[in-house]
């Protein structure tokens, strides 16, 4: 995982609530054995019309969305399936963070393992972001803060361990493997065996 300490970008706003992982990347694109190149399938059925042409009305296709790496989305972003292809597709497309009032559990967990930032903010901050698309914001991973234009700073909750891994670009498997002896001891000493 690539380390991420700070992210500055204009926002792109997708106000729909309950954006599920089938929208983020439809199931028919999951017949892959790689995690690369999934950005072309991101939000496919919203980005493209039935005849395969770009849908000019979809926010990511508008000129003002070019180079934006922070998505502001409606409540409960990433609900649905456990497909890690969702954060893989978002990252490959060039997005690095999503800001919402609520982010679904499995999607959040998958995102953190790939350096995609799931940022949960309060309703007022969220509403302000929805009302001000394209504004320049910055995320400071170390301080767990989001800075809005005019210097307003909002802190967001994040698990200490997840933050540490993001800052250092640490692969959590390495941490787990350090517990090899404890795992073996657990296996030997547990009162019943699966």
């Amino acid at each position, binding site marked *: 995982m690539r380390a991420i300490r700070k992210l500055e970008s204009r926002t792109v706003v997708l106000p729909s609530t309950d954006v599920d992982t089938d929208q983020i990347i439809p*199931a028919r694109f*999951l*017949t892959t054995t790689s995690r690369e190149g999934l950005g072309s399938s991101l939000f496919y059925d919203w980005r493209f019309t*039935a005849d395969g042409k770009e849908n000019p009305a979809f926010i990511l296709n508008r000129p003002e969305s070019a180079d934006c790496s922070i998505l502001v989305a409606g409540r409960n972003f990433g609900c649905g399936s456990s497909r890690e292809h969702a954060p893989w597709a978002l990252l490959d497309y060039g997005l690095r963070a999503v800001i919402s009032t609520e982010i679904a559990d499995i999607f959040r967990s*998958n995102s953190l393992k790939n350096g995609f930032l799931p940022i949960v903010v309060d309703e007022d901050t969220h509403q302000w972001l929805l009302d001000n698309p394209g504004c320049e914001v910055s995320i400071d991973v170390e301080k767990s803060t989001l800075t809005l234009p005019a210097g307003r700073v909002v802190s967001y909750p994040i698990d200490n361990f997840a933050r540490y891994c993001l800052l250092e670009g640490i692969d959590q498997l390495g941490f787990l493997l350090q517990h090899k002896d404890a*795992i073996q001891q657990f296996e030997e000493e547990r009162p019943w065996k699966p």
Partner: protein
Amino acid sequence: MHEATAKTLFEKVWSDHIVRDETADTPAVLYIDLHLIHEVTTPQAFSLLREKGLSVRRPDLTLGTMDHSTPTTPVRTIKDLAIVGESAAKQVVAMQDNCRDFGLELHGFDSEQRGIVHVIGPELGATQPGKTIVCGDSHTSTHGAFGALAFGIGTTEVGHVLATQCLLQRKPRTLAIEVTGKLRQGVTAKDVILAIIGQIGVDGGTGHCIEFRGSAIEAMDMEARMTVCNMSIEAGARAGMIAPDETTLAYLAGRPRAPKGSAWEAACKRWLSLKTDSAAAFDKSVSITGTDLQPMVTFGTNPGMVIPVGAAVPDGNGNASFRKALDYMKVTPGKPLSQAKVDVVFIGSCTNSRISDLQQAANILRGRKVAAGVRVLVVPGSQQIKKEAERLGLDKVFIESGAEWRESGCSMCLGMNGDTVPSGQLSVSTSNRNFEGRQGIGARTILASPMTAAASALEGHVADPRQFLRE
């Protein structure tokens, strides 16, 4: 028991699997007793193992099947199945190679025990009370019906479990959902869970592990309990659990992977002790009167947008996402769903493809004909269920009514294998997600029970199954 030592079912299973406790700075190291794997969410995890030169720590606790991208077209033997699409075929081959190279048991095309991952775990008796069970699939919550702590994980975590048999986890909060009273005729587990999601919302369970309890849950057989727990994730919950009882033991007795002899006796004793202590507290509680429930159908693009069959579609008070969902579904606020013509009926998926689901659908279809212009696909959850259904003559009931009888798999639930609903068509489906395009590009999905799906197949529009029930 003192309140401080009293534990919920979830807490008992959780604390029984702690290798290292969580601290403010580090999550818990949680041991996993059963890792279910399938072809879609594992190839990248196996690649990682190869890159790092790691092996699978406990092949004996890993069980594989192929279900998502596999075809369900009828064939003489399952070896004759032809996979739709080059990339899907490559994925299936990768699964076979990975399981062979890492020494893992795989129920592939040559296995009579192949089926949907959440169907075969219980069927083989691998799913047991008190276990921690994970799979790279969000509907892993299904296995919670046995009093297991079971949840879906991403592919990176699949790699973690393959390499270490453990996961890094923060302890979720607990949510008790009590379903009181007795379900009325024509009201099933599917209707119960849809009503629950309608009440608490698609994010009502976020950050929580649900325990389903109460007389209506206790009265359910294991297949019904699996349907309820299966859709815990549709309420946003990590897991859903039901305390093991005599019904659980009766289901597991004699299954291939269930303990035998004195080990069985010891296991039963341990399993029955898992239930929530009477003094234990939940972080949140919800109660629903089972007696008041009716057959439920969804009208929008998430499972929380649900109404009793026959009720009018609500208007959503001008909410933009709600309005967008109604536009996508082409349904009109204030009107019942029975106005719309149904094009496809899908009976299957890890939610509703077990033998009792097929029996319920068959009871309604028996001796009747599917309405003209409706395509009905019946897809059993496993090859074992297919065989059992054929032994009971259910395949003939389906075929004679005008339905298609298929090989097992996930099929039209997510349309990865070539079984899709054409764009714009309306499907009544016993699956778990009515998301936009879930069953095919532009497909419109109404979620319902097997009985409601069968009744809708006969009528050609969304229909109340109770008119077809016979004693």
